[in-house]
Structures are given as C-alpha cells and as structure tokens.
C-alpha cells in the first residue's frame, strides 16, 4: 500500500504539472481548452525527436518541449482563439475549435510517428529502494519539478504585478478591462504559460511511461478533472486533487485490476461534480 501511495504521489506530480497549466487557462479565460491535450502530445513528441535526432540530454529535451509548448500556446491564442473572441464567439464555438485543433495535431503526429507507444529511454528505469518503496529516478524528478513549479507559480501569482493582474482577470474580467488591464496580452501570457506546462508534462510522460499520438485527450481530461471537479483556483488544491486521482487509480488497479482504474476515476468525478453542483448556484437550472 505504501508503494501504491508513493507511485500515486509521483504520477500525481506529473498530472499536477499539466493540471496547473490547464487551470491557468481555464480559470482565466473560461475556455474548455481541449487543445491543451494537443500541446501535451506535441511536447512529448518534440522531446522524443530532439532526444533521438540530436542526442540532447534530459534538461535540454525538457527545455525544447517547454519552448515548443510556449510557442504553440501563443499561436493557439493568436490564430485560433483571438479571432473568435474578437467576434464575441460563445464558449461552445471556442470548445469546438479547440477540439478541431486537437484532432488535427493528434492525427498529424500519428501519420508522422506512427500509432505505437514510444518512450524516451535516456533516464535509467531501474528502481532504487528508499524508505521501503521502490522508485525510479524519473519519478523523483517529476515530484521535484512539480514541487518547484507549484511553489514558483504560487509565488508569481501571489506577489508579482502580473500575478495580481491574472487574479483580477480571473475574478472579474469586465472590471479588469475597465481598470486598464490589457486582456489580450494577459490571454497570450496565460495560453503561453499554460501550454509551456503542458509541453513539459508531455515530455515527462514520454520519459516516464511513454506516449502515443492520442494520449493527449486523456491527459487533458484528467487535468480538467483536477480543476473542474473541485472548482478551486488554488494550485495546491489542484495538485492535491491530481495526487488523489492517481491514488484512486492506483488503489482501484490494485483491487480490481488496472483496466477498471479510469472508470473508477471518472465515477468519482461524477460524484464530485454532483456534490459541487448542488452547492454552486452557477450550475442550477430552474
């Protein structure tokens, strides 16, 4: 059981990186950003490409995935979302455009790289024993990266002017604009940063478990669960939700077999959503 908990913390850390990126975009723009999954996949395959093509080390591979993620995020905002927002398009329109982009990217990668699962084998997968649990170095790396990111991002949001602007837009976009905040600039920053994290999460997934072209949708769904099921804007709560989700998957897999883990996860999501809906007036119908 301690091993299950340790594994949950490690894979939860990986999920937390992607979830925080999704949350950054979702809570600021209110878009169900399905293209987050496309950037996740893109980050993973860029990592694979630069690692096998140019022999880059893990830090450089991660940096490449983050840069590509950041650029993709800005491109998504500028070329896909901004024209729709200028036209005052509904959230449904943005969601469907985002879905369209995900389909294009996932299938484009499938044509170029094939449908099989690919893994980045630069880091040793041999486990080492520590406090009675077996961990690999990439699992430890995931936890360290997630911890550093959450602390840094929380500090930026709490203490910087940019963080204050982001929180203001999250709370009341209309009033923020009235007070002179440049909403377009903030959207670019948010999409860029969120996608940077998605790219990094994709790279870590490629090192840890391997990736296939259609993995991004599941990654995006799990990230969205961490943000929407509880509905908290707190990074710590989103990270805790990520670990809980992975723990739940681990325990379900342990008891019933891994094939039931995703079903159990989404069953809990439904229960959480239902509990939340009864308290949240935004969701009430009639």
């Amino acid at each position: 059981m301690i091993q299950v908990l340790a594994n949950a913390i490690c894979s939860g850390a990986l999920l937390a990186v992607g979830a925080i990126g999704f949350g950054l975009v979702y809570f600021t723009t209110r878009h169900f950003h399905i293209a987050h999954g496309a950037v996740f996949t893109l980050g993973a395959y860029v990592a694979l490409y630069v690692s096998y093509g140019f022999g880059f080390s893990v830090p450089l591979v991660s940096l490449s995935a983050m840069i590509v993620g950041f650029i993709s995020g800005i491109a998504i905002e500028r070329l896909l979302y901004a024209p729709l927002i200028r036209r005052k398009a509904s959230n449904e329109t943005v969601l469907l455009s985002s879905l369209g982009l995900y389909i294009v990217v996932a299938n484009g990668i499938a044509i170029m790289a094939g449908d099989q699962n690919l893994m980045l084998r630069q880091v040793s997968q041999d486990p080492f024993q520590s406090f009675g649990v077996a961990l690999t170095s990439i699992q430890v790396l995931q936890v360290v990266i997630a911890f550093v990111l959450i602390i840094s991002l929380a500090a930026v949001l709490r203490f910087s002017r940019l963080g204050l602007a982001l929180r203001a837009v999250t709370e009341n976009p209309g009033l923020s604009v009235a007070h002179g905040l440049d909403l377009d600039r903030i959207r670019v920053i948010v999409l860029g940063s969120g996608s940077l994290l998605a790219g990094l999460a994709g790279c870590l997934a490629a090192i840890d478990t391997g990736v296939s072209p259609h993995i991004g949708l599941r990654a995006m769904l799990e990230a969205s669960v961490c943000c929407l099921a509880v509905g908290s804007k707190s990074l710590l709560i989103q990270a805790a939700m990520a670990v809980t989700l992975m723990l739940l998957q681990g325990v379900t897999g342990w008891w019933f077999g891994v094939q039931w883990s995703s079903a159990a996860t989404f069953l809990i999501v439904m229960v959480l959503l239902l509990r939340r809906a009864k308290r949240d007036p935004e969701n009430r119908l009639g």
Partner: protein
Amino acid sequence: MDFPHILIMLAIYTLLVSALNIVLGYGGMISLCQAVFYGVSAYTTAILTTWLGWSSIPAMLVSGIVASVVALILGSISMHFRGNRFVLLTISLQVIVSAIVLNWTGVTGGTSGISGIRGPSVFGFMLTTKWEQAGFAVVLAAIALVLLSRFHDSPYQRAFSAIREDQLAAQSLGKNPKYFRFSALVLASLFSAVAGSLYALTTGFIDPTSFTIDESVFILAALAIGGSGNVRGPLVGAAVAVFLPETLRLIDIGGGSAANIRQILYGCALIIMMRFRPKGLAGNYDLS
C-alpha cells in the same frame, strides 16, 4: 464502391447526427457521449439476437428502452449542470461505459466483441442481401427524419429553443428547463438506439472500438460541419461523414494513413466552420 454499405452507413449517421442535433441544436448542450447510447443499444441488440435468439424488431425495442434508461440516469445527474461541467460529465459517462464494454468480457466479449449477429428480419422475413438491409436502414432513417421534421415545426421544439436562447425568459413563461433538457437526452438516446441496433444487425460484428469517445467526437464534428437546429443540417453532416472517406478511398489518398487524413480533414473543417460559419453548412442554430 459498396453502395448498399454506403447507404446503410448514411442511414446510421443520419440517425446519430440527428440525435445529437436534439441535444445541441435544440437543447444547447454539447454532449460527448453520443457513442454511449449507440454502443449500449448495439450490444443489447447483439446479445438479444445472438445469444437469446430474439428477432430483430423486439430486440430493437428493448435496445431503445435500455438506451433510454442510460439517458435517464445521465439526465437525472446532468440536470444540475451547464456549460463546461456538462461536457465533462458526458465525457465521464463515455469513459465509464467504454471501460465497462471493454472489460465486462462475460457479457460484451471484451476486445473480441460479438460476432455472428444475424441480419435484420421484418415480420418473419429475413433481409439477407445487402440491398435489402440498406432498404430497411433507409426506411428507418426516413421515418426518423419525418418525425424530426414534425418535431421541428412543433410548439415543443419552440420551447426547447426558447430555453436554449434565454432560460430565464422561458422559465417566466412556465417552461421547465429541467424537463426539456431531460427529454432532449431521452429523445436523442432513442434515435441513437435505432442507429446502434441497425449497426449491429447489418454489420454482423461489433467490438468496443466502434463506440469510443473518438466516435462521439466524430459525431459532434459531423453535426458542427453540417449544422444544427433544423432537419437538413444533420443530414448534410452525415453525408459529409460518410462520403468523405469513400471519396478518399476512391481517389486513393493516404494509403495506410487514410483514417488519419480523414480525421485531419474533419478537424480542419471544424476549425474553419467555427471561424467562418458557426451555423455549419446548412444549420439554423448559430453556435457563436
């Protein structure tokens, strides 16, 4: 070209896209679990006809009831949700049902699926040839379209649209949004159930890969491309969904990557439609 097969698939997608049209085009809810109703009904029909020896029509009726029960469950949960959380809820249902279909091997056959499903029979007459089965599928789709066109002209549909456009105003006129959203899901499940039964009876084999979230995404993309809020939009969407891969096959584009190229074209079409024509090619309801 296998024309009877194309006609069957056109009938099936007309039913599926029209079913989603009730939820999105009239109800204003984006659902990503249409393949759940489609799959549940296909499996029910396959089990009843193959293992229990039922004939097609009673099996189709029971499949409709089973799909409606799933819709009732979804409806009773989703009446608390709107917007993005409704989307997440439908995705959750899709993932759960996909896992059940894949892993409950004693009932669904797991990854091997169910094979040897008998073709449809009407009043004791077996429809053995592909052309007969295509005729049966087209008749069912035509009946569905007639019913939907009656629905489109009814006060019932106007109440749906009123709730979609301005819920508070509709409520002030005594329309209960919970009831209408609930009934949209059940109606959609019934049309999808007919499509699921048709699929099982005409292909003779089903497996979980036909009812995944990708299928739900595909149906949504077809509706967005064809357009929603009327009867002809889903018909156009279904035609695009069926004829585009056939055209690609005819001009031999893609080879082994034809399925991916097809998906890319749908994805591009979705982006272009949302940017330049949110109504779709022939729809009434402007998503923007």
